[in-house]
């Protein structure tokens, strides 16, 4: 057990200046991040359903139980409230639990503990109780799943003071963001875009960065497109298509949904004067609503057009045969860009 994980093909090898760069899927990058965290801090424990021998339904935790033992990679009973709430107790004892919620739509049994306990214990105890825990949620649709397996519920948690909510969009960010989240003193909801798990990219190139800083992932001049998680790739596709029509989109990957990197957001919108917010979640009271409100308040005299939102429709996530119509895509982003430019 002592050295096996160091030579595992899943682990990111260490170079003189830190991890060496390697191309891998987001799933592998998350796996490598979890391994690095387990390796670095003996108090880190993974908890969740089927995360041991099976490696989780998405195989994000494939391997660690063999290498770090059943006490640190804990196959839990099938009860989400119990998983999150026992993780709270583990954190009270000094551990740093990383909880896996199997699918986005399965988090609701744990909602009470996340909102009433995880989010509030630090304030309730006047700072005496810290809860350094991460709740990982594979999020969003586009994989042809049955009901409750394709939801985007980040706004519920972003609405709750005491929580931080972040979402990665590519393998490299997944790798360092998850490690940063595990080391952070506050509880963090960590959203992983499940349909991008198999996207490949270079990992390990970036130095450790600030978890709460947005990333201007593609600079542009005409319209700011704000996105996060699974929609970042769609927006980059839209930007490439727009370029062919002579329209320059600036795509900003928010990374952090709370706190928001308002400096980066306002900076971009003041430069372009136009903004389209894109997310999979329904638009009504979604993150786009908050962004539109803040942007109109802070960037009013820079705006050439109203802030527009592109998101899921305000319906329960539809049956998968029509999810392509529900999910925002390149065309719907470009449609919003056109409407913005029409002003």
């Amino acid at each position, binding site marked *: 057990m002592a050295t096996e994980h160091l030579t595992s093909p899943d682990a990111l090898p260490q170079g003189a200046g830190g991890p060496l760069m390697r191309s891998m899927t987001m799933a592998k990058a998350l796996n490598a991040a979890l391994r690095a965290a387990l390796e670095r801090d003996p108090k880190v424990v993974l908890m969740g359903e089927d995360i041991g021998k099976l490696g989780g339904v998405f195989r994000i935790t494939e391997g660690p139980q063999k290498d770090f033992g059943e*006490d640190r990679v804990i196959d839990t009973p099938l009860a989400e*409230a119990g998983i999150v709430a026992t*993780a709270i107790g583990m954190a*009270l004892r000094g551990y740093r639990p990383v909880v896996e919620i199997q699918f986005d739509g399965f988090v609701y049994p744990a909602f009470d503990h996340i909102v009433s306990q995880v989010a509030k214990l630090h304030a309730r105890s006047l*700072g005496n109780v810290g809860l350094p825990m991460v709740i990982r949620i594979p999020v969003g649709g586009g994989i042809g799943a049955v009901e409750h397996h394709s939801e985007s519920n980040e706004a519920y948690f972003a609405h709750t003071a005491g929580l931080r909510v972040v979402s990665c969009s590519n393998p490299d960010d997944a790798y360092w963001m998850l490690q940063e989240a595990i080391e952070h003193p506050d509880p963090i909801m960590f959203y992983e875009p499940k349909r991008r798990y198999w996207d490949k990219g270079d990992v390990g190139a970036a130095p450790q960065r600030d978890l709460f800083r947005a990333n201007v992932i593609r600079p542009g001049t005409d319209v700011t497109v704000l996105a996060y998680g699974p929609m970042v790739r769609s927006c980059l596709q839209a930007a490439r298509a727009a370029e062919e029509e002579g329209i320059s989109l600036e795509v900003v990957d928010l990374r952090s949904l709370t706190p928001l990197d308002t400096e980066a957001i306002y900076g971009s919108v003041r430069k372009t004067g136009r903004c389209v917010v894109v997310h999979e979640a329904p638009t009504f009271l979604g993150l786009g609503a908050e962004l539109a409100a803040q942007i109109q308040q802070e960037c009013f005299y820079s705006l050439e057009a109203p802030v527009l939102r592109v998101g899921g429709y305000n319906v329960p996530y539809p049956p998968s045969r029509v999810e392509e119509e529900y999910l925002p895509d390149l065309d719907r982003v470009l449609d919003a860009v056109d409407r913005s430019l029409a002003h």
Partner: protein
Amino acid sequence: MGDKGRQRRIEPRDGGPDMVQLVTPEGERVSDERYDAIADALTTADLQGFYRDMVLVRRIDNEATALQRQGELGLWAPCLGQEAAQVGSGRALRAQDFAFPTYREHGVAWCRGVDPLNLLGMFRGVHNGGWDPFEKNFHLYTIIIGAQTLHATGYAMGVQRDGAVGTRDPDRDTAVIAYFGDGASAQGDVGEAFVFSGVMNAPVVFFCQNNQWAISEPNERQMRVPIYLRPKGYGFPGIRVDGNDVLATYAVTKACLDAARDGQGPSLVEAFTYRMGAHTTSDDPTKYRVSAEVEVWKLRDPIERLRTLLGRAHGIPTAFFAECEEEADSVGADLRARCLALPDPTPESMFAHVYAAPHPVMDAERAALTEYLASFEGAH
């Protein structure tokens, strides 16, 4: 089903033949060979200590109720009548053990050495539970019913991973106690705590104070079989104890805590007791229960029965009881004075501990509030 399906309780139940009792309501010591050894190891001074604890806890509790009636607390959840259940279990804990209370465990807080001013501060609204849980190994009061049973289970899982179970080192082996009530037994969280602790063999003792009433709903609305029988389905023992008998509560809880520390896993203690007062000061129990029931339970008072035992069987003179009353007066007056002197928090303090690390929204909103408040200065 209608009324036919309802069981209306006319006479209060007595706990039945399975209930462990070491001191009768009349103050007579009776034998239970499973627990006699633990009880007999207690000295007369220990029993006097239990008596003093219960008298002081009752006084603190009554003082808080009075303060609420006078408008000095927003709410209070009295533990009147449950002093033996709380002191007996609280005194069975070791320093390294960890207690997870509901919002009514004032007697346990007292045993752990938590200043009752902290409890009053919470009900006065100056904080939401501002004490350091790690100082006395007494977690914050949990208001969401039953939630703390899972926190206790997780904490106990951490204890296991620290290797603090089954070493036979009395200063190292650690047990966790999770308090909850008969109403909470209906919560899914409690069922999940039973599953998790059973599966993990976690060193946790579930301590249910069955005070017969979940606000206005009797036991019959919460359970079809008594709580102490329920753990059988989860694979660990359950024991019903006379919760108004401090000696029996102490002995049974100690046996369960010892087993947990020894690595034998979870257990459940159902302390059969009675909520003599209202659920909280906002409640009106005359609307749903008959006074005859309360009168019967008065005869089972936990303090009176220990006083009788101490006087008759241990020869404790009345002067001791008078001293306890005097001390209670002093503790009550001191608590009252300190409660009234509690400073209100500053408005800006609401932003202080929402996050452990800096957060721009907290900074911005705090600054905006300060500026807004300052705009009124000199306005009059």
